[in-house]
């Protein structure tokens, strides 16, 4: 618990729930007649609403990207390292908007919300949403906030996919897209990991075909396993090696099956904490959104042709030890952008932290990110 807030923090922030009653028809064909989105904003929107930055969250993220909800908070928002006064996304210059996506479990309408048609939780009946569906709801949010055009749409991992989708679906509504530690589509291996996570959840006896709320239980073991396997893909061999090595909890081998190595107890702890706070149906939905994402699909699998829709400028960043979405995946995206004659800058940041590196403020990452955002800010203030 911080006694006082750090000077480069956005401070105490309060989320706000916005209700939307314009029906939205999703990619799967189903329609939601109304929905809520929970939102946090930092900084001040300028007179011509040209300094707004949209932050898109990744698989298990939410609207609380920066600052603290109260002084009692143990940790700030998930991207506090990059959002705040003097940070790359400088809240002295930008009006920053972050939301919990549709289908989430942090306040926006999702599987654990009550279906207004039945008065019961949606549960497994909540429609599968896609990255493009999210972008449509984010556009509705922009309308509500009076933002015709974002100065930048920024995201890491699944968030980067939303930034990319924005550039294609609403090309005139953003000036820059920052796509960090992301990919233009999942590989078979990526989908395979997601499938293991989903099977872990759906095979938990407490899952009850997604109706666990009716039974007053949570498929904790499944969620925990899903998070454990996911977590391994977020770290690198080197960073795990450095953090845990082969360190044991006791001095000697116990010749049993309890968590003996530090890495085992770390993963169990992470999994347990996650299973206490995250909704299983949302996890299934988010992983499907990842799997389905493939903007080239509508363009005969020609990513460059897809990118010809884009009008914004791009910054693509990858991390050297990210094996979930490797630098090669970012380079594939950059190659298509070059062919499409998009304006794109690309850097591969040398970092030991694997996929999680996009959350960690390493010096070169902050330098590149900050330099690019400074220039975005200069365009705004002209």
């Amino acid at each position, binding site marked *: 618990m911080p006694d006082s807030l750090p000077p480069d923090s956005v401070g105490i922030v309060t989320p706000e729930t916005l209700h939307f009653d314009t029906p939205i028809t999703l990619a799967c064909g189903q329609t939601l007649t109304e929905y809520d989105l929970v939102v946090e904003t930092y900084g001040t929107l300028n007179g011509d609403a040209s300094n707004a930055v949209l932050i898109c969250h990744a698989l298990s993220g939410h609207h609380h990207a920066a600052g603290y909800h109260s002084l009692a908070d143990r940790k700030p928002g998930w991207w506090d390292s990059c959002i705040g006064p003097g940070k790359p996304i400088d809240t002295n210059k930008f009006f920053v908007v972050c939301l919990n996506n549709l289908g989430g479990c942090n306040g926006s309408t999702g599987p654990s919300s009550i279906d207004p048609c039945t008065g019961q939780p949606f549960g497994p009946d909540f429609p599968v949403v896609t990255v493009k569906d999210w972008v449509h709801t984010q556009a509705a949010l922009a309308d509500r906030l009076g933002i015709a055009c974002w100065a930048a749409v920024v995201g890491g991992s699944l968030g980067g996919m939303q930034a990319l989708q924005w550039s294609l679906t609403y090309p005139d509504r953003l000036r820059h897209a920052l796509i960090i530690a992301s990919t233009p589509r999942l590989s078979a291996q990526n989908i395979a990991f997601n499938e293991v996570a989903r099977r872990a959840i759906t095979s938990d006896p407490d899952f009850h075909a997604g109706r666990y709320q009716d039974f007053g239980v949570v498929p904790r073991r499944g969620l925990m396993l899903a998070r454990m396997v996911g977590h391994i893909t977020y770290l690198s061999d080197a960073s795990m090696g450095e953090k845990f090595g082969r360190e044991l909890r006791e001095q000697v081998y116990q010749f049993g099956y309890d968590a003996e190595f530090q890495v085992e107890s770390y993963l169990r702890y992470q999994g347990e904490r996650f299973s206490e706070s995250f909704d299983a149906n949302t996890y299934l939905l988010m992983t499907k959104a990842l799997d389905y994402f493939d903007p080239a699909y509508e363009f005969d699998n020609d990513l460059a042709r897809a990118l010809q829709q884009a009008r914004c*400028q791009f*910054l693509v960043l990858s991390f050297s030890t990210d094996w979930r979405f490797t630098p090669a995946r970012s*380079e594939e995206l*950059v*190659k298509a952008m*070059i*062919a499409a*004659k998009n*304006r*794109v*800058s*690309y*850097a*591969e940041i040398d970092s030991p932290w694997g996929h999680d590196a996009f959350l960690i403020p390493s010096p*070169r990452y902050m*330098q*590149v990110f900050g*330099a*690019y955002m*400074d*220039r975005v800010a200069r365009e705004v203030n002209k």
Partner: protein
Amino acid sequence: MRADLEIIAQWIQPGSHVLDLGCGDGTLLDFLQQEKQATGFGLEINPDHITTCMARGVSVIEQNLDTQGLKNFDDQSFDVVLMTQALQAVRRPDRVLEEMLRLGREVIVTFPNFAHWRLRWYLMRRGRMPESKTLPYRWYNTPNIHLCTFKDFEALCHSRQFRIMDRSVVDGQHRNHWFSQLWPNMLGQIAIYRITRQEDIQ
């Protein structure tokens, strides 16, 4: 604006799509964007230069020519492909030139002329590898692994059927003197060439 960059800018048509290999801090691309409404990219590997490019709004791509090549660029996708003061530092300059001509209709390169009289005099008098302000390294730590002269470069162009469209020369401070234009191989410190493929000339 440095004289060599000014010469290069004169050879570039307004609105050209340009690729600058080893674009440094993006000075030239920035100038071409402002003054020639050029579009395009710079390739660079120095992290500080990459940051500077991004800060000034030059599209820069982190890519190492020697290890990654230029395979991610399509044939004839640029009007001009540039390389200033880097040709002598790549592993195979001849292959890089071929690649540059694959990507662009025209290629502009600059490199230090190893036949400049001062370097000749240094070698003759001391019998050691020349060092100068333009070439401030020892033989064992220099990045300039393929130094050549005006004559060497033109011989390569001839053997590969590259057509030389323009040639110019500046001194080590990038100044343009009339006398060095007279006898570039002896008096020119930095060579500037504009080349294209033989068949591209009508």
